[in-house]
C-alpha cells in the first residue's frame, strides 16, 4: 500500500502540490488527471523523491520513504517512467534496459559494486533485458543508440526501463504521449497485463480520456495542486469540476 499524507511542496509562493493525502492499494490502477500544471508530475516527483517535500510524508507498505534519496526509493519498490523522455542517449537500447535490470537485482554483481567481474558474463541480465525488449516491440532496434530512435520508440523504451525495474508500484507519466495510434496499444496492452498481477499498484497520469476510461479502476483529480475529486471513473468524469476545468466543457452546455 502506497500512501501519501499531507504531501505539499511550495516553489517560492506557488504551492504546486497542496496537502495531498491519498493511498493506493495493490491491484488497482489509479488514473491521475487534471489540467496542465495541476501538479501531477510534481506529485510523482514527490513520491519518487526527485523533489523534496516541503511537508508531508510518503510511505510504502507501512515503511516511511520520506527523506530517502530517489535511488533508495527505487530499491524499496517504487518505479517511475518520465513524462519527458529521459534516457541514456549514447548507450544502445539493450544497454539501457540491462542497466535497469542490473539495478534491481542484488545478484552476484551486487548492483555493479562488484568491480572484478566481467559484465558480459552476467548472462541472466541480458536474457531478461531481451525478454522485455520483445515485450515492448523494440527488439529489432536493440543495438541502436537511443539518440537515433524516433520519438515514439524512445517513449516505449522509457516504459521498458520501468518494467525492467520490477517495482511494486508503477508510475506512468503520460506513457503514450507522442506515440502513434497504432503503437500506443502495445503499451496499453502491457499495462493491462500488469494489472493482472494483483500485487502491483499502478499510477497513471494520462490526458487521453478514452484510455483513462478504459483502464482505470479509480480516478483522482488534481487541480491547482489540490486533490479535488476521487472515485469511480464514470462518476468522476461526470463531475462538474472535471467537465469544466479539465475537459473544457461548460457545465451549462453539458446540462
Amino acid at each position, binding site marked *: 500500500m502506497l500512501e501519501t499524507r499531507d504531501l505539499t511542496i511550495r516553489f517560492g509562493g506557488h504551492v504546486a502540490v497542496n496537502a495531498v493525502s491519498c493511498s493506493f492499494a495493490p491491484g488497482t490502477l489509479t488514473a491521475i488527471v487534471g489540467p*496542465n500544471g495541476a501538479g501531477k508530475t510534481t506529485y510523482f516527483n514527490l513520491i519518487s523523491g526527485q523533489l523534496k517535500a516541503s511537508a508531508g510524508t510518503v510511505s510504502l507498505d507501512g515503511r516511511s520513504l520520506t527523506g530517502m534519496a530517489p535511488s533508495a526509493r527505487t530499491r524499496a519498490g517504487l518505479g517511475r517512467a518520465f513524462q519527458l523522455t529521459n534516457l541514456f542517449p549514447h548507450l544502445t537500447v539493450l544497454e539501457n534496459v540491462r542497466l535497469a535490470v542490473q539495478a534491481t537485482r542484488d545478484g552476484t554483481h551486487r548492483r555493479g559494486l562488484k568491480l572484478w567481474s566481467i559484465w558480459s558474463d552476467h548472462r541472466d541480465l541480458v536474457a531478461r533485458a531481451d525478454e522485455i525488449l520483445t515485450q515492448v516491440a523494440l527488439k529489432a532496434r536493440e543495438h541502436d543508440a537511443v539518440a*537515433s530512435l*524516433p520519438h515514439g520508440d524512445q517513449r516505449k523504451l522509457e516504459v521498458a526501463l520501468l518494467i525492467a525495474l520490477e517495482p511494486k508500484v508503477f508510475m506512468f507519466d503520460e506513457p503514450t504521449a*507522442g506515440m502513434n495510434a497504432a503503437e500506443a496499444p502495445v503499451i496499453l496492452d502491457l499495462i493491462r497485463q500488469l494489472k493482472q498481477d494483483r500485487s502491483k499498484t499502478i499510477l497513471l497520469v494520462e*490526458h487521453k480520456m478514452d484510455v483513462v476510461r478504459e483502464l482505470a479502476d479509480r480516478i483522482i483529480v488534481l487541480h491547482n495542486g489540490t486533490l479535488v475529486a476521487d472515485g469511480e471513473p464514470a462518476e468522476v468524469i461526470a463531475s462538474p469540476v472535471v467537465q469544466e476545468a479539465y475537459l473544457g466543457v461548460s457545465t451549462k452546455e453539458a446540462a
Partner: protein
Amino acid sequence: MSEMLLDLQGVHTHIGAYHILHGVDLQVPRAQLTMLLGRNGAGKTTTLRTIMGLWQASQGKVSFAGRDITRLRTPQIAELGIAYVPENMGIFSDLTVKENMLLAARAARTADDIDTQRLEWIFQLFPAVQKFWNHPAGKLSGGQKQMLAVARAIVEPRELLIVDEPSKGLAPAIINNMIDAFAELKSRGVTILLVEQNLNFAQRLGDHVAVMDNGRLVHAGRMAAFSEDVQLQQRLLGLAL
C-alpha cells in the same frame, strides 16, 4: 504565384550514414491546413527539419512561395516567414517565459513592443503563458511548455506555420483551445503544416492530408475523402480514425 506555398520534390535526406527520406514529394496549399500523418519513425520529423534547413536535403528540391530554399540556411528560411515548433518544443529553459516570447517576436526590442492585442489573444488561449510570465520556462509543466512553444510560434504573424505534434501532453480543454487557435489563424490566411498523432485533432482541422511511411509519401489528398475511407486508413496507419 503558384497555389502551393510549400513544395517538396523528390527530397532525400541522410542523417550521418543513414538514408532517412527516400524522395518525398509534398505539397502544402496556401491558406489551408495540411496534416502530415504516419507511424513512429516514418520520417515526419525529418521532413519538417529538412524544410527548415536543420538537416540538409541530399537530393531534391524544397521551394517556398515559388522560391528555391533547399540550400538556404535555417535563419534565412525562418526570415521568409516560417514559424516552426519542433518536436522537443525547443524551450529555452533558463530564460523566463517572457524572454522566450520576446525572442520569438523578432521585431520587438523589449517585451513592451510586442503587439498587445495578439498577446491578449494568446493569453486567452493559453492562460499558463500569462500566469507564468516571469518564471523560468524550464520550471513549467510538460503541457505548459507545449503551450509556450505554440504561443511563441504565433506571437508574430507568419505566412507558414510548421508544428510537430502540438497536442501531446495537453489536457483536453487546452487541445480545444489549440484547435480554435489554428482555425482562427487559418481564417486569417496563414498556411499550416501539422504533424499529429491525435487523429481526432487531425480530423477536426485538416483540409488536406499526407501520409508517410518508411521515408516516403504514401498518400496525399483531401482530409474529407481520407476520413471516409476506413480501409485506406487501416492500410496506411494500421487503424482507423
